[in-house]
């Protein structure tokens, strides 16, 4: 299976092999540990999961992390996407399983809590009608 980043709303930055992903559409952001960051670098650019497995990545790590990213709205399946090669110098740290930590602690900094108080149709950062005047 191949994947791609779900939309232009999803932006990310790499800091010495550790990635932070932000979904600008929801305001949620995610910290990836080293192994998750390596998998992200491959999956987000369209590397076939079989290629990752051939490179020594445990199948359960690949499947589990890809499913988490899809569930979080960061990646979508892209079976028809052109296949990409593994990133140059690809190395999967094996000391810890991939971890995608979701963060939502922005509620005290912005008018609307992007996770809990969002108007389901208008999207973040708009409050649902019953909270407009709070």
């Amino acid at each position, binding site marked *: 299976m191949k994947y791609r980043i779900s939309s232009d709303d999803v932006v990310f930055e790499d800091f*010495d092999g550790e990635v932070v992903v*932000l979904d600008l559409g929801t305001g949620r952001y995610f910290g990836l540990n080293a192994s998750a960051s390596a998998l992200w670098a491959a999956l987000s650019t369209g590397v076939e999961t079989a290629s990752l497995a051939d490179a020594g990545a445990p199948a359960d790590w690949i499947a589990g992390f890809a499913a988490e990213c899809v569930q979080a709205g960061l990646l979508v399946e892209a079976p028809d996407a052109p296949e990409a090669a593994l990133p140059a110098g690809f190395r999967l740290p094996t000391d810890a399983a991939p971890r995608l930590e979701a963060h939502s602690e922005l509620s005290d900094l912005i008018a609307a809590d992007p996770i809990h108080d969002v108007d389901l149709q208008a999207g973040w950062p708009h409050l649902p009608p019953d909270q407009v005047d709070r």
Partner: protein
Amino acid sequence: MTLAGAAVALDPTALPQGLAAMFAQFGNLWQNAAPITRFTVEETAFDCRGTAPAYADLVRTGICQPAATATRPAQLLLLDAPGPLWAAPYFQEREVEAALRGTPYLLAHDPDRGFWQAFDRATGRGLQFMRGPTGYPPWEPGSPLRNFLHWQVLGPRRGLIHAGTLAFGGIGVLLAGPGGSGKSGTVLAGLLHGLSSVGDDYVLADLEGGLALRPVFRTLKQDPTGAVRLGLSLAPRAANWQGKLQLTVDEIAPAALVPQITPLALLCPRVAHAPRTTFRPLDAKSAFQALAPSGVSQIPGDRAAAFALAAAVVRALPCHAVDLGTDPAEIAGAICDFIRRGGV
């Protein structure tokens, strides 16, 4: 004065054309608009006119005006007037950003308050509509016209970032963290004990030729309990929308707001109630997570650029976690010593 606003319909499927039509009315409105205030930020001289005279006070108390020579003009028309008609059920912010990508226009809207801000980067002209002469969002007095200022100065390597600052002798630190991390209390502790700053909440980060930080706003804030702990003696005032007391640097340390500082580290404080304040190295990813999300959340229009700017700032600095002590003087002294040691 009427624009306007209500006479112009913005269709999200033809947004650049709609904004062009709105700004086509700007010149005539500007000529007949009442002056409100003028101020300078970086190289831009902002001229504000319209029907929101309260902004004269907001700008006077809230915006830091260095003695710089302005080389670019910007005109902000601040109107107590209905905004444009939005020809769709909802204002989908990310769709608006996408529709305006590659155009000179930026647009922010708070549907709950009927508040609109539109900006044309090519001409430096901004339009603000609000319900009533003081119908701005409650955070506006703390950082007046923040969106316009950010949009005017934002570049690949320059923009506003959400962080506090402290310095000694022109060399300083950035302080980043979520609400409750002790960022504002640390800035106040430093200002009360001899350190300088370029701001507590939003500061201008300029990465051209090495990272420099400059002031934009002169406001500070602190919750009432923290104000007592710090020994602040303030004239009575109402709490702001967050339940915090807003004050200005001038009230507690008039000479402490300096024109520029060169940071040597990014500090992520934590209220630890520790016997003394201690520093330890912090990975860049964690520091980025402390710095980026709040600023990206709070300034609409080009959030991806703000995210990238925060990343560039983090990459430019060593990062440290700080477990804060309980004594404001000790905290200030520890940060001063950290700066004097060169950030080690």
